[in-house]
């Protein structure tokens, strides 16, 4: 049996009151995360992937936001939790790594000071000296050379990749159970990206850290994820294991995403398969399936919203929101030639 989930999100809905009306950024997202698992949430801008992550951390609470549903960390409900209680969880039990390591540190304090502050805020009994020693240890663990000396540097003295390592070190300072990484490698060069991905994988394996990886890059997903959620216009449109999503994708949006990738290990196609149109405005969503206006396979039933459910007899955890039958899907994705991947033998 699989272990009990560490984090479970149920029917999470996040809306923001705007001048144009209620903007439903996240519309009924559910998932479970187990120790040692890497869950990737994939989507384009406006899909709700970052808002989902920020809501788990309680970062979207404000006067004009409407948050419903449930986020449970072990036995603790986070949506209902008070601000003080949430502050204890944040940083301590859930660590977060942001996209832009340039703006995530305070430029006028030494890194050692910023990391010890994070430690001492949560652990009052740790002395300054101990906290600094812990920072050095963490810098070592994330592969920053000459940690003893560099821990006293200012953020601007670090390169982008090193700064992202420092960010990860800070997120790990209190041994969190869950790490949320929002586009952690998007701002980095590919050679540095590869190093950071290896690091995340290592930490995940060594510490049984449960990780939520938010990204738009399916190449990154293929390298590190165990399970994948594909989001579109605030909803999960497909969910499955890494291999299910890549080798037996069920939703036309997933086909489009996979199809539009350029692959260095394949002969190049004459033309890149593309998804036409643009994502809808969240203030003016179409009736039924949100992907309908861009979908080449639309038919009568698509004006009803399809539920996210398992539609394949042999894969109970592989869910999608598309009315096509599985035979139709298999046929259409072949005909469209959008999938360059063969099913595994």
């Amino acid at each position: 049996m699989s272990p009990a989930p560490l984090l479970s999100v149920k029917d999470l809905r996040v809306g923001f009151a705007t001048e144009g009306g209620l903007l439903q950024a996240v519309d009924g997202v559910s998932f479970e995360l187990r120790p040692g698992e890497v869950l990737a949430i994939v989507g384009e801008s406006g899909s709700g992937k970052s808002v989902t992550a920020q809501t788990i951390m309680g970062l979207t609470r404000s006067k004009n936001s409407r948050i419903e549903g449930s986020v449970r960390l072990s036995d603790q409900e986070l949506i209902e939790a008070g601000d003080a209680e949430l502050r204890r969880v944040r940083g301590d039990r859930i660590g977060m790594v942001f996209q832009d390591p340039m703006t995530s540190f305070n430029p006028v304090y030494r890194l050692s000071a910023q990391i010890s502050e994070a430690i001492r805020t949560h652990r009052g009994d740790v002395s300054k000296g101990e906290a600094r020693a812990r920072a050095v240890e963490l810098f070592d663990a994330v592969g920053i050379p000459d940690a003893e000396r560099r821990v006293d540097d200012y953020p601007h003295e670090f390169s982008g990749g090193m700064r992202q390592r420092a960010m990860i070190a800070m997120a790990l300072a209190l041994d969190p159970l869950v790490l949320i990484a929002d586009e952690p490698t998007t701002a980095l060069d590919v050679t540095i990206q590869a190093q950071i991905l290896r690091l995340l994988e290592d930490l995940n394996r060594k510490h049984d850290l449960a990780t939520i990886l938010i990204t738009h890059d399916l190449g990154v997903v293929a390298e590190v994820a165990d399970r994948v959620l594909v989001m579109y216009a605030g909803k999960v449109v497909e969910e499955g294991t890494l291999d299910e999503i890549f080798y037996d994708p069920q939703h036309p949006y997933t086909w489009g995403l996979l199809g539009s990738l350029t692959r260095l290990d394949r002969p190049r196609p004459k033309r890149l398969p593309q998804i036409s149109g643009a994502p809808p405005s969240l203030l003016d969503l179409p009736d039924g399936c949100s992907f309908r206006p861009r979908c080449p396979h639309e038919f009568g039933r698509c004006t009803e919203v399809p539920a996210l459910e398992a539609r394949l007899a042999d894969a109970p955890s592989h869910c999608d929101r598309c009315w096509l039958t599985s035979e139709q899907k298999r046929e259409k994705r072949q005909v469209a030639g959008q999938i360059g991947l063969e099913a595994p033998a």
Partner: protein
Amino acid sequence: MSEAPLLEVTDLVKHFPIKSGILIDREVDQVRAVDGISFSIPRGQTLGLVGESGSGKSTACRAVLQLIKPTSGSVRFEGQEIAGLSRRQMRPLRRQMQMIFQDPYASLNPRKRVGQIVGDPLKRQKVASGSDLRKRVQELLERVGLASEHYNRFPHEFSGGQRQRIGIARALALQPKLVIADEPVSALDVSIQAQIINLLDDLQDEFGLTYLFVAHDIGVVRHISDRIAVMHNGKIVEHGTADQVCEHPADDYTKQLLAAVPIPDPRESRERRQGAGAAG
């Protein structure tokens, strides 16, 4: 014999001085941003310039277009030497070489309407005015996949992909021969990237454009380019046909770069990592 290339760059160098001292500026060192690069692009073809941040690829573009003055070297456009030409001497040549920028949010004036943005080069170069100008701009907008009604809108009313189309329409307004695109898709969502790349491909076929396509994403560069030059520390370390560079890289840095690109295929990605683990 083959005809002369549209653009021929030889030993192009751009060094930026590092100065020190309070009253007297003393040059203490130089940043060798572009350190002697040479390449040429035949008419109607695409050269992809790949490299990581700081490799000098954007500086190279700007030095080719004479937006910054090269330290030394030669840039020949249709056989004519343009390195060192004054702004005035460059002006008539500007309409033949245009640029598409990375950030569609920063490269369009937020206070101007789309019609003005796209029509401005036509007006400045005295190519069209009045109702003729309007008609040409509307045709351009339609050609890049926008609607002629967009003429009176402001940039903030458009998505990133649409803004990039506006930038492309502006670059094409003067029917240039050479288009330099500096990271034109890296700020866009994946599903929109493919649209813009296909659009650039179509426009090249239709107007016989020559592209210098600069990007850090080697997958995208390989798709659109005939030849690829890999830049590292201001130098071109490898140069060849797109497939040759991607499939049989000769240079160590190119190999490193290719090995770091994630493969969007879980099984192959696992195999590669196991292979690397066993080797290392």
